[in-house]
């Protein structure tokens, strides 16, 4: 682990010279995609990173996180637009100017109509067409292209969640004409305007791209092409990086695998690390007794020593940073002092556990026993499950775990046939205002499987969503966080994930971000060989 930290620091710390290093043209990057092939190529309909890692290099987006500063939560830059506009109409109208030098890979010109059509397909999908994230654009009223170079988004209300939502990595721009003819065409075909042109797909095995010589970001891409190979098994991927069959995988590997690569590869391997916009959370079924009692839920939170648990866990799992409901790197996140006021984060664990025992006794739940449903995935689900079960045993709570495959795991959550479930929330680019929707009441956010309704909590959230002043927004977020984690103890969040990406040291120009969905178009990547 010390080796990883050192290598991570070496890779990340000297950002200035790293950025200044001139890229070299040429070469083919082979990388592993740590999944089976995606269900389809259509970013609008899919939610898996396998789609992003397969096809993002073929597509343009309206705007994106700065590829030179992807660890930032708010450094958005234009891809197809010419500049990030200032909103008008009290923050409700956003007018984007679209570049006029963008060609589709078939040679035709991309216009604002294509951008508007793509965004309309994402926000207002026609019946029979799936749009996985349409609900996050609830603030959007209309999207129009008044001329060939302008796209206007009109909102129902001003919100600072809008701009990051536009930077969603799945929001590929498709050709309006093709979408109009067949809205399902992009599920099985690829035609974009991104840095690489589609060069072949071996069903279930690999995808290939070749340099787009007409790419509008001049001088890019550096690579002649890329090959992405699907490999769900971790040992295969580690061996492939070691054996020069692939240069890297972009999602992230656990510390043990990274140590193995560093030991075998030495200075031929570099490592980049980042906090990851994914958090483990424990979902408690409010409809089952005694979990309908807030004292019991608080007691479960108070029993866990996150501050002491996180450091050793980070040596064996992909988790590292203690945080609340907001990504720890975000300006909206709680500081350590603020966090330590909340149940489950108190600095004095003995005091915390004494309070937990008292609450259980008061609620008549002493000697509580229950079952926790755990997803049959090692990293980090099984590790964190074992850890919290041990922590709960310290206040006399006995928990058995039921490890099930992904399908039955979802079924248990959706059907409410569980006491407690160990799950995670893994979001795309950092957008706390939308990311915390996971913790809204079940009737508002069906992906919150806690099975409760709470109008007060939702009211708090609506206030944050509509607040555009950063200071006021932050204060409101604190109230929401304290209410969600402590006062009502609706949710129990555990340690945030840690993204570790080892790669052959010949790979340059790629910088890690807090999301494995982001910064994957490979436009700036080059090979030092």
């Amino acid at each position: 682990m010390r080796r990883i930290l050192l290598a991570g620091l070496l890779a990340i710390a000297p950002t200035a010279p790293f950025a200044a290093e001139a890229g070299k043209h040429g070469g083919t990057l082979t990388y592993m995609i740590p999944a089976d092939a995606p269900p389809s190529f259509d970013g609008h309909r899919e939610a898996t990173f396998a789609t992003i890692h397969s096809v993002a290099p073929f597509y343009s987006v309206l705007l994106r996180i700065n590829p030179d500063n992807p660890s930032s939560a708010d450094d958005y830059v234009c891809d197809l637009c010419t500049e990030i506009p200032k909103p008008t109409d009290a923050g409700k109208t956003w007018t984007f100017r679209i570049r006029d030098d963008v060609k589709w890979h078939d040679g035709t010109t991309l216009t604002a109509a294509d951008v508007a059509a793509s965004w309309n397909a994402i926000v207002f999908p026609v019946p029979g067409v799936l749009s996985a994230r349409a609900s996050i654009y609830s603030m959007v009223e209309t999207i129009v292209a008044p001329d060939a170079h302008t796209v206007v988004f009109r909102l129902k209300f001003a919100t600072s969640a809008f701009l990051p939502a536009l930077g969603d990595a799945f929001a590929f721009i498709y050709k309006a004409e093709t979408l109009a003819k067949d809205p399902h065409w992009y599920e099985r075909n690829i035609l974009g305007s991104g840095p690489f042109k589609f060069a072949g797909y071996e069903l279930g095995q690999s995808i290939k791209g070749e340099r787009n010589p007409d790419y509008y970001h001049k001088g890019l891409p550096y690579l002649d092409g890329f090959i992405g190979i699907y490999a769900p098994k971790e040992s295969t991927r580690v061996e492939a990086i070691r054996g020069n069959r692939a240069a890297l995988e972009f999602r992230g590997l656990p510390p043990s695998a990274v140590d193995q690569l560093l030991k075998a590869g030495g200075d031929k391997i570099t490592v980049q690390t980042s906090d990851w916009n994914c958090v483990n959370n424990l979902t408690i079924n409010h409809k089952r007794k005694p979990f309908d009692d807030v004292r019991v839920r608080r007691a479960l939170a108070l029993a866990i020593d996150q501050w002491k648990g996180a450091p050793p866990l980070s040596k064996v799992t992909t988790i590292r940073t203690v945080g609340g409901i907001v990504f720890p790197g975000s300006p909206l996140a709680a500081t350590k002092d603020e966090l330590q006021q909340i149940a489950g984060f108190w600095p004095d664990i003995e005091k915390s556990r004494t309070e937990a025992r008292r609450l259980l006794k008061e609620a008549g739940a002493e000697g509580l026993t229950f079952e926790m449903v755990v997803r049959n995935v090692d990293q980090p689900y099984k590790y964190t499950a074992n850890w919290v079960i041990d922590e709960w045993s310290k206040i006399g709570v006995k928990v058995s775990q039921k490890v099930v495959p992904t399908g039955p795991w979802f079924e248990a959550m959706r059907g409410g046939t569980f006491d407690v479930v160990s799950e995670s929330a893994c979001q795309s680019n950092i957008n706390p205002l939308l990311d915390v929707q996971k913790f809204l009441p079940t009737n508002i956010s069906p992906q919150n499987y806690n099975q409760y309704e709470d109008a007060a909590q939702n009211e708090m959230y609506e206030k944050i969503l509509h607040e555009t002043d950063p200071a006021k927004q932050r204060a409101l977020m604190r109230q929401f966080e304290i209410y969600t984690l402590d006062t009502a103890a609706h949710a129990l969040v555990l340690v945030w994930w840690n993204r570790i990406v080892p790669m052959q040291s010949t790979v340059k120009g790629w910088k890690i971000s807090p999301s494995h969905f982001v910064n994957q178009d490979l436009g700036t990547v080059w090979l030092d060989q």
Partner: protein
Amino acid sequence: MYQYILKRVLLTIPTLLGAAALVFLLMRLIPGDICLVRLGSGGASFDPKALIACHKEIGVDRPILVQFLEFIWGIIRFDFGTSMWSGKPVSTEILARLPISVEIALLATTVAVGIAIPLGTISALKQNTWIDVAVRIFAIGGIATPSFWLGIVSVLLVLDITSWVSGTPWMPPIDYVPIWKDPIRNLSMAILPAITVGYRYAAVSMRMTRSAMLEVMREDYVRTARAKGLINKLIINRHALKNALLPVVTLIGIEFAFLIGGLVVTEQVFNLNGVGRLFVQAVQNQDYTLTQALVMLTVAVFVFTNLAVDLLYGWLDPRIHFA
């Protein structure tokens, strides 16, 4: 003979239909939802309306009976529909994976037969000598060693040895190229899995060959052949081995059928894009149509391999007649 074949082929129809009904029901007993797995397994947020649209799109919102009748009607027309996961025709999904699975099965069978029959025979002929003991240890090692473990160890060994010899670690390719496009790349990818799978396969067949040979060598007709002065080589090749191969052929047939679709873990270890890996994906994703088609394929392979084995009996033992 032809009547026998026709009868056996016709018997496959109720077998396949029975398997179809069973797999259809079993798949629906597993709790889960393909659309939830698709939209939510990465932990990212998704629109609840997308879930409803997904159910409608793949047809799982229809009554079970309608789905079952559609499935059976599809089987009758040799149309297994489209994969609920990828939306591609099931036949396209399977045909893309079949070549590598068939190639590994053929190579593993070649390795197994090439090792098992000579060594099993020698072991029987040299019963209770050090040669017999060595062969039996080799065979027990093959049975006791899981193929996937051997696979992982063999790749690590190749990496370590090449690193030690040349300074640069090398491992076999992890993406499949058909043998007619690049034979060297193809074989470098296929040879390790073929050996690791073939070793276990050889071990089982070797033990069967040895015990069958021991039994046959005690038969009266072998004693008669010896009594009339035939040389040992002729007795073994012409009289003993051919008869001893009857149970071995049965075993080879069953093992071969198993390899098409049964190399679930080995295909994962070597990143082979074969039928076994597809099987795992289909079950994990709760892709009903694809799983059903794969089970039907496996059943068909078993049924027809058994038929081929039965027909081989007639050639190996002229006393067997098909009526």
